[in-house]
């Protein structure tokens, strides 16, 4: 087996350990398991990073194009943001209860879809905009996943008292944290759309064509635009927005990697394949 794949599956395994530690930690009210979960995530993040690096260095072609590569990067960003938050504040220990299972399932799915590394990059993708685009998309996904996890924490704290719920920060703090990560994700999605428009303009001469990939990204952006309006103009707070963040996350995963993902839609028309 290739070193890249070994690293990849070790990462998946460690994320699995992390996932089950978090879930059992919550069920059994064992805080120690959260620590196991956190270090499991950190331990998995290392081979995850190496796997991406190896894949990249093998051909020198950015390994963020196919669907499994895209999921691998999206989960990478999510774990990165999660770890940075956890190690810089240590405030919300069970946060991984949502983050890690989602990451684990997604990256496991990516593993089943994995294909050989492309040896050439399609000419349409040979553009600097692609970098801005994929960073916007993956960081956006990472942010809204963490935001949804804060939403879940909010609901947990609201439902139950004592034990773990007691150690969570105030409801209002959780609500604010969730909002901040949504606002950050919204900006990242904005970056994804703007760079996509410039990229399309570079290749086709029009910045917006209502093609499925564009519409899906508009959908993700609008979903969070509506969230911000509900909060700012309509004064929504707390439980309703926590639910909103969780449901929006599902929409996000579908819109990203579900039906629409195909570079094929990018440049249609018959051409000679040389």
């Amino acid at each position, binding site marked *: 087996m290739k070193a890249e794949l070994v690293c990849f599956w070790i990462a998946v395994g460690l994320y699995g350990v992390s996932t089950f530690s978090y879930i059992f930690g919550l069920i059994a009210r064992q805080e120690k398991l959260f620590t196991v979960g956190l270090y499991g995530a950190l331990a998995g993040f290392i081979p995850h990073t190496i796997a991406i690096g190896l894949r990249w260095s093998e051909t020198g072609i950015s390994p963020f194009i196919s669907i499994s590569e895209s999921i691998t990067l999206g989960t990478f960003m999510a774990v990165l943001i999660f770890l940075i938050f956890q190690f810089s504040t240590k405030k919300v220990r069970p946060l991984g209860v949502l983050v890690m299972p989602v990451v684990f399932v997604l990256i496991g799915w990516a593993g089943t879809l994995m294909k050989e590394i492309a040896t050439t990059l399609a000419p349409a993708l040979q553009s600097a905009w692609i970098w801005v685009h994929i960073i916007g998309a993956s960081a956006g996904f990472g942010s809204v996943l963490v935001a949804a996890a804060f939403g879940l924490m909010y609901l947990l704290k609201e439902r139950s008292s004592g034990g773990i719920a007691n150690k969570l920060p105030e409801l209002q703090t959780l609500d604010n944290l969730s909002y*901040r990560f949504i606002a950050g994700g919204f900006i990242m999605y*904005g970056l994804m759309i703007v760079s996509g428009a410039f990229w399309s303009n570079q290749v086709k001469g029009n*910045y917006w064509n209502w093609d499925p990939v564009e*519409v899906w990204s508009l959908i993700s952006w609008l979903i969070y635009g509506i969230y911000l309006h509900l909060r700012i103009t309509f004064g929504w707070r707390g439980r309703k927005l926590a639910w909103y963040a969780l449901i929006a996350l599902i929409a996000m995963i579908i819109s990203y990697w579900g039906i629409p993902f195909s570079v094929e839609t990018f440049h249609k028309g*018959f051409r*000679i394949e040389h």
Partner: protein
Amino acid sequence: MIRNIYKFLSSVKLAMALLVVILSCCVVGVTIYRGVEAGTHIFSTFWFNGLLVMLVVNVCFCFFPRILNRKLTLISLGMILFHLSFVAILGGIVFNSLFHFAGLIRLTEGETLPSGDLQSYDFAEQGRFFDIGKLRGDTTLIKMHVGHRVDGADKKVAYEISVGEGEAKKQGIIFITKHLEYRGFRYFCDREGYAVLIVLYDKMGRELYGGYYPLQSLRQEDGSYLYTTGTKDGPGSIAYPYDRPQPLFSLQVAYRPSKISERGGEAFFQVWPLTHEGERPEAKPLAEGKAALGEMFDAGDYYLSLKEVRYWTAMFVRYDPGLPIVLASLWVGFGGMVITFIGRMRRMRN
């Protein structure tokens, strides 16, 4: 009455309703309808674009009066920039739609067409106030390069073109991520195919006629391509010679490129008695058979030969004077989001 309209247009509820409706349309446009259908049923319709315009009108009536009453802070400044960019984008789109031009021009290598003649375009579309006089001079496809490389990166195909007139003529190589701009007109690669030179001889071997016939590239089930006369929906025959008042017969030509030599290969000919347009040819051809590049094929009273293989290319020609407004506004909007975000972070910290 006017008051009620104003009240309606300036309500935040309308803003929310519009956002939700537009979001729903988008979801329908990528699930129930797909691709072209989504365009005809939703995105290109009058009502959908009306909704977008209404959103912008709503921003003007609802957002600005509310925010301008407040103290200017980082947060409100960002919001103003963000919502303002919506208005500017719409302005840019409207302006552009009045003055723009878009055309698809198809040329065989070596061919030159007048840029300002709408006949030169397979398809052309223009804004009400577009001045066709702006399209000066000619458009020439000099050569199509296969396997074009730039700094080691494979661009697959590139078109060497020249546009314009006289002194100001501009020549350049374009590929998928690089266009050529001439006096505000931008030339973009779109697609390409083979064009074969089919020459007609009499039985004595004297050359009677020759013309370039563009071929379609039809993807086969096994993933390979069939290059043949016909339409994009399938193979078909053409009247040959197509540019004579009296064509001689119906001809279908399929070309098989050589794996070894670029622009080499062989042709497969099928000749039928001439049919009128739309009429099906008889089941059995008068003659059919293969001939390599440069060889003669016996077509009954005549000989035919595939004499040369060239490429045809189709390019999009665009003129979009509103584009800079839209593109700049995108960054203004993005900047607005970032400024609001920074403002909120600072407030939370205090």
